[in-house]
């Protein structure tokens, strides 16, 4: 190839642009004026146009991506089932992580003062594909704040218990989820509910690993003596705050004042004074549910007992 004339070299970029239809009209005019006079550049312009035409035809090439696409869609389906979107939010109880899958809310976690994710369940579960997306869980967060603020007494969320450690744990969590706002029951009571009356220690372990604290209200499960026992590891203080918030105990208390609370049993329709005649002779006293106030008992759908009439003789609050 012979070296280009300097004028031809400077116009080459415009010439290519003209051939590919990308040149501004001024540049195109310059090129046309140049090729009028310069045969080799005229030829070049023709070649570039021919190349442009060739390349245009190459665009039409199809490659069959069907198999690849089907594999991809299968992978995405699998990922979708494992996906957990989460957000980390400030709360009166410290930073909280809220996570959900396509099936429902699956994780609520106290993160400690620094909001540290390192100890989160997220990194430890290969069956979960965690993605931060606060917007996806913000609605839950707002309801949770209302709850912590005492403006909401129920969280009717779809729940996904996949992060529980076993089916036994899931059974415990389901039974616990049925304890109404403002009530407490004992570990032994939950053990009876799931048909394993001797398993109260295992129940306590299951609740210790509750992936959905607050939502699955494990704070409402206490010792048979009324002692708070434990909460989410070392966080008994949070348990006290939640129970005080719900009116099940005084904020400064150290145990549930069972003797000064309204009493009922699972699936009963009425609530009683602790002095009602049937109570000393009950077959399963550990199954008692206790309410701190009539208001909470009635909000749970219970009516005053017609024998002891807690409506006429309310407990001193």
């Amino acid at each position, binding site marked *: *190839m012979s070296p280009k004339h300097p004028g031809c070299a400077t116009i*080459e*970029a415009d010439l*290519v*642009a003209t051939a*590919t239809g990308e040149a501004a009209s001024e540049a195109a005019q310059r090129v046309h004026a140049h090729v009028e006079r310069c045969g080799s550049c005229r030829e*070049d312009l023709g*070649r*570039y146009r021919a*190349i*442009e035409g*060739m*390349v245009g*035809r*190459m*665009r039409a*090439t*199809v*490659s069959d*991506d069907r*198999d*690849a*696409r089907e*594999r*991809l*869609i299968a*992978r*995405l389906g699998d*990922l*979708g089932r494992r996906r957990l*979107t989460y957000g980390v939010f400030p709360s009166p109880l410290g930073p909280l992580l809220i996570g959900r899958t*396509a099936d429902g809310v699956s994780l609520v976690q106290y993160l400690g003062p620094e909001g540290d994710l390192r100890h989160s369940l997220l990194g430890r579960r290969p069956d979960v594909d965690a*993605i931060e*997306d606060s*917007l*996806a869980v913000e609605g839950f967060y707002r309801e949770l704040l209302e709850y912590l603020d005492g403006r909401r007494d129920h969280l009717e969320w779809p729940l996904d218990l996949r992060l529980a450690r076993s089916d036994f744990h899931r059974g415990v969590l389901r039974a616990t989820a049925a304890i109404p706002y403002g009530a407490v029951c004992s570990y032994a009571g939950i053990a009876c509910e799931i048909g394993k009356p001797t398993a109260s220690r295992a129940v306590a372990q299951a609740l210790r690993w509750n992936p959905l604290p607050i939502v699955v209200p494990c704070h409402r499960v206490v010792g048979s003596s009324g002692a708070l026992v434990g909460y989410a590891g070392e966080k008994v203080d949070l348990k006290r705050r939640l129970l005080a918030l719900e009116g099940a105990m005084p904020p400064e208390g150290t145990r549930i004042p069972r003797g000064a609370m309204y009493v009922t049993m699972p699936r009963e329709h009425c609530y009683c004074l602790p002095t009602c005649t049937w109570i000393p002779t009950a077959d399963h006293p550990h199954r008692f549910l206790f309410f701190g106030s009539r208001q909470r008992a009635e909000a749970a759908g219970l009516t005053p007992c017609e024998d002891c009439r807690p409506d006429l003789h309310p407990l001193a609050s």
Partner: protein
Amino acid sequence: MGPETFETVVAAHHPEIHRYLRRMTARPSEADDLSQETFLRAYRAFRALPDDANVRAWLFAIATNLFRNHVRSEKRRSTLHAAVLATRSESAGHGPEGETVYRETRTLIEGVVAALPFKQRTAFVLRKIHDLDYETIARTLDCSADSARANVFQALRKIRHGLNGHAIEGMRASEKELTP
């Protein structure tokens, strides 16, 4: 935005991204893997993508980055230049005379394109085959629009020179190949 929305993204863009990677890589399996990886990454980041984002340009950028990393790791094994063969086999088959000439020229062009430096080759394919604008190509390659334009220009120059210098020899060689 739910998984359904991403499915429509796959339906709309997978064929093209796959074609792009098929053109850039040597083996079909590489294009399959890279396009899958592109969409898996996109899936993870999809929710954070603004509503008005150009999804197509975004996917090309992910695919290009993955391809670049792939080339870097592949380079040690240097299987790159087989790309020409791969694209040629796609258009193999007998046809009328004009078709044969077209195929030969095309093979030549693809040979030159496959030998281009990464930036020129990517800019050329994105501009000429996939019709992305220079702004988008610039973002994909992390350079200025002018630099993207200059890379396409350099690629076209090399193609032109490639056809100049090798056209006669190359065509003769492939004529021999094609005549029984």
